[in-house]
C-alpha cells in the first residue's frame, strides 16, 4: 500500500512540480506571475485541442510520434502566448504585476472552459467531458520492464516520460540558477534590476525570456494533468486549485527548484493522504486537503523568522523597472 501511495503522490506532485519550476524561473527575474494557474489551465486545454483535432483527422490510426508531438507543441505555444501577454503588460507597459497575474488566471480558466465546452459540444457526447484515451495512452507509456522490478520499479520507474521531464527540468533549472553565468545574471535581475542594468545586462530581455520559458514549463504541468493523471479526460474545472498549490510550492521550496522536487511529492502526498487513512468522514477529508497550504504558511513563518537572506524572495519581486526613473 505504501508503494501505491508513493506512486499516487508522485503523480499528484508532477503538475505542481512543473508549475513551481516555471514560477521559480519567472520569479527569479522579478516577475511575480500569479497567472500561473491560468497558464497551466491554458497549457492543458491547448494540448487537448491539439490532441482532439489530431485524433479526429487521423481517424483510428494514430502515429505515436505525432500523437505526442502535436499536443505538446500546442501546449507549449498556448502557455508561451500567455507568458508573452504577461510580459508585454508588466514589462513593456509596466502594469501592476499582481493585477495582471490574477487577470490572466481568470482569463486562462475562462479560455480553458470556453474551448473545453466547445469541444464537448462538437463531440455531442452526453457526458460533460472530452475523452482522449488514445492520445493519453501514448503519453502514459512507461518503461516496459518497470513492472518486473517489484517495488523499486513501481516507485521509481513506473511513470510516464513527462514525469521524468519534470524532474529533469527542475534539476536543470537548479543548475542553471546556481552554476551558470546566465543564471547569475537572471538572479541579479530579480534581486536588483538597477544593478543588473548598470552591469550591462538587458533586464527586459531576461524578464521576457525567463517568464515565457517559465510559462511553458508551467503549461506542461497542465498537459501532464490531462493526458496522464486524468487519463486524457478533460472536464471543465477539473484541474482544481493545483495552480495555486504550485505557487505555494514556490514559497515552500524557498525558490530552489531542486527542493521543489521533494516538495511536490510531499504536497502530492498531503493531497491524497486522506484516501489512505481509514474512517475519515467527508468533512475531515476537506481538512486534510488544506494540509499543503498549512505547511506553506508554516514554512513562511520559519523563513521570515530565521531571516536568512538567501531564503527570502527575490528583492525586487513584483516591481517593474524603468531605467530613467528619478
Amino acid at each position: 500500500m505504501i508503494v501505491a501511495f508513493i506512486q499516487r503522490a508522485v503523480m499528484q506532485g508532477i503538475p505542481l512540480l512543473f508549475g513551481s519550476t516555471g514560477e521559480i524561473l519567472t520569479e527569479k527575474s522579478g516577475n511575480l506571475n500569479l497567472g500561473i494557474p491560468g497558464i497551466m489551465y491554458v497549457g492543458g486545454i491547448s494540448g487537448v485541442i491539439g490532441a482532439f483535432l489530431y485524433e479526429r483527422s487521423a481517424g483510428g490510426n494514430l502515429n505515436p510520434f505525432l500523437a505526442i508531438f502535436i499536443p505538446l507543441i500546442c501546449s507549449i505555444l498556448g502557455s508561451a502566448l500567455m507568458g508573452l501577454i504577461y510580459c508585454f503588460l508588466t514589462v513593456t507597459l509596466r502594469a501592476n504585476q499582481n493585477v495582471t497575474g490574477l487577470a490572466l488566471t481568470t482569463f486562462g480558466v475562462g479560455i480553458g472552459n470556453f474551448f473545453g465546452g466547445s469541444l464537448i459540444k462538437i463531440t455531442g457526447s452526453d457526458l460533460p467531458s472530452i475523452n482522449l484515451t488514445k492520445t493519453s495512452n501514448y503519453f502514459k507509456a512507461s518503461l516496459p520492464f518497470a513492472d518486473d522490478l517489484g517495488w523499486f520499479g513501481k516507485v521509481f520507474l513506473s511513470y510516464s516520460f513527462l514525469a521524468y521531464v519534470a524532474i529533469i527540468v527542475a534539476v536543470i533549472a537548479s543548475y542553471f540558477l546556481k552554476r551558470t553565468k546566465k543564471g547569475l545574471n537572471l538572479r541579479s535581475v530579480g534581486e536588483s534590476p538597477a544593478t543588473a542594468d548598470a552591469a550591462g545586462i538587458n533586464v527586459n530581455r531576461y524578464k521576457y525570456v525567463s517568464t515565457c520559458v517559465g510559462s511553458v514549463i508551467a503549461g506542461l504541468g497542465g498537459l501532464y494533468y490531462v493526458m496522464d493523471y486524468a487519463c486524457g479526460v478533460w472536464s471543465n474545472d477539473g484541474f482544481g486549485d493545483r495552480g495555486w498549490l504550485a505557487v505555494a510550492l514556490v514559497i515552500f521550496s524557498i525558490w530552489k527548484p531542486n527542493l521543489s522536487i521533494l516538495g511536490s511529492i510531499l504536497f502530492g502526498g498531503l493531497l491524497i493522504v486522506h484516501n489512505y487513512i481509514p474512517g475519515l468522514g467527508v468533512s475531515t477529508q476537506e481538512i486534510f486537503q488544506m494540509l499543503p497550504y498549512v505547511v506553506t504558511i508554516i514554512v513562511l513563518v520559519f523563513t521570515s523568522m530565521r531571516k536568512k537572506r538567501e531564503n527570502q524572495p527575490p528583492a525586487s519581486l513584483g516591481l517593474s523597472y524603468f531605467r530613467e526613473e528619478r
Partner: protein
Amino acid sequence: METKAAIELKNITKTFGSIVANKDVCLKVNRGEILSILGENGSGKTTLMNMISGIYFPDHGQIFIDGKEVVIRSPKDAFNYRIGMIHQHFKLVDVFSAAENIVLGLEEEQKFDINKSAEKVRQISEQYGFDINPNKKIYDMSVSEKQTVEIVKVLYRGADILILDEPTAVLTPQETKKLFKVLRKMRDNGKSIIIITHKLHEVLALSDKVAVLRKGEYIGTVETKNTNEKELTEMMVGKKISLDIERGEPKNPTDRLEVKNINCVNFEGVKLLDNVSFTAKSGEILGIAGIAGSGQRELLESIAGLQKLKEGEILYNNPKTGEVDNLRDKTPIQIRDLGVRLSFVPEDRLGMGLVGNMDIIDNMMLRSYRKGKSLFLNRKKPKGLAEKIIEDLEVVTPNAKTPVRRLSGGNVQKILVGREIASSPSVLMAAYPVRGLDINSSYMIYNLLNKQKENGVAVIFVGEDLDVLVELCDRIMVINSGRITGIVDARNTTKEEIGLLMTKTDSLENQGGEE
C-alpha cells in the same frame, strides 16, 4: 605639452521634463589625471556622470574618447569604452558574494567558474592594495567594503576611466584616506579618475583639476594648484544676486524653542546629530543651511517627535499657558497639538505629509480627522480649508477633488505648506518648501513664511539656496555632518561665509593631503 584627452565632453545638455539638469557642459580629462567635479546639491553632477556611464542619454552634445566621437547608449557601451562608474548608491546585489557581483554581466570567453573569478579578484585587490574577501556576501559587508567591491568591479572590467560619485559621503576619515591613496595609485598607473564631491578640502587634497557646476551650468575648470577654497566656494555658490525679499524686523522676539545638546544615532551607530543646541525665537525666521543629508531632516524630526534621541532635551515655551514643556516626553500628536508643525518637502515630494492618490480635501483631513466626534467624517470644514488654500495660494487644479498626485510639484508643495500654516502654529518648520518651484511660486511661499513671522510664529526654514537664506532669514544656523558649525546673523553675513561653514571639517581628513 599636448596630451590627448582620455574623455572629453562638449556642450552636453540634458533635461527632465521642464527641469534643465545639465546645460552646455564641457569637460576634459587626460590620462593619469584626477578631475574633481564640484557643485552644490542639484547642480547636475550625478546626471552628467550618468550620461557618461550610459544610464541617461544626453539631449544634445558630444562625447569624445581618445579624440574619437562616441555614442554611449547603455552601461554596456560604457564598459566597451572602458568607462566604469562607482555609484553613490551602490549597485550591488545583497545576496551575492563579492566575486559574483564583480563578474555580473560580464561576457567572458572561458567557462563560468566563480572560483577562478574569485582568484582574479584577489589578484586585482593585491595589485592596488585592497582588502576584500571575494566570497563574502554583500549583506555582511560594511559600507567601505561595499565601495571597495564597486571599485574592484570596474577594475575587473579593465576600466581606464573611473567615475566616483561622492565616494567619501559614507566613509570615515580613515577610510577616506585609504581610498585616496588607492586613487592616487591608480592615477599613477595612467588611469583617468573623475570624482564627484562637494567637500572642498577633498578636492584640494586629491585632484589635479577642478570643474565646477552650478545649477546645471558649467562654470569652469581650474588647476587645483592655482586655486584655493575661497575661489572655489565663489565659483560654486555664485556671485551674490539681489532677490528683494521683504524682510521685516522681528517683533519682540522671545525664546520659543530651546534645543539643548541633542544627540541622535542611526541603527548602525553613526552619529546623525552631534550635540546640537540652539534657540528658535518667536517672530523670527531661523534658517538652516547645510549640504543635503547633514542632519537637517533628523533635526526637524527630533523636534516633531518622530526621531528617537539618545541624549538632550527640547524645551518648548508655550505661549498660551506660559509653561515649559519638554517635547522629548511627548508623542508626535501631542507635539502637533501644542502648535509645533512640520512641513517637510522630501526629494520625492509626496513621500511625507501628503497621500498622492487622495484628493486635496482628504489630504486636509489627514490633520483633522481625529477631531471628529461622530462615526462619520465631516467633510465640510476640510472642504472649506481646501478651497481657501486653492484660492489664497493660487493652486492650479481642476477642483478640490483632484488627487494630489496629478498636480504639479509646485502646487503639491503649496498645499502641504498651506495646510500646516492653516492650523495657526506657534512653531513652523518648513524643509525645502520651494524645492523645484518656479520663481513666482517660491515668492508666494516666502511671503507666507514672512506672514507667519509677523504673526509671532517661530519659523524654522531649511533651505538649499543660499541667496534665499541670506535674504529671507533673520539668523542662519549652519549644520555640517550633524554638528552646528555656526549661527550667523543673516543681515551681516555673506554666502561665502556660510559656504565655508557648510564644508568645513576637522583637519583630520586633510592630513591625507598632498604628497
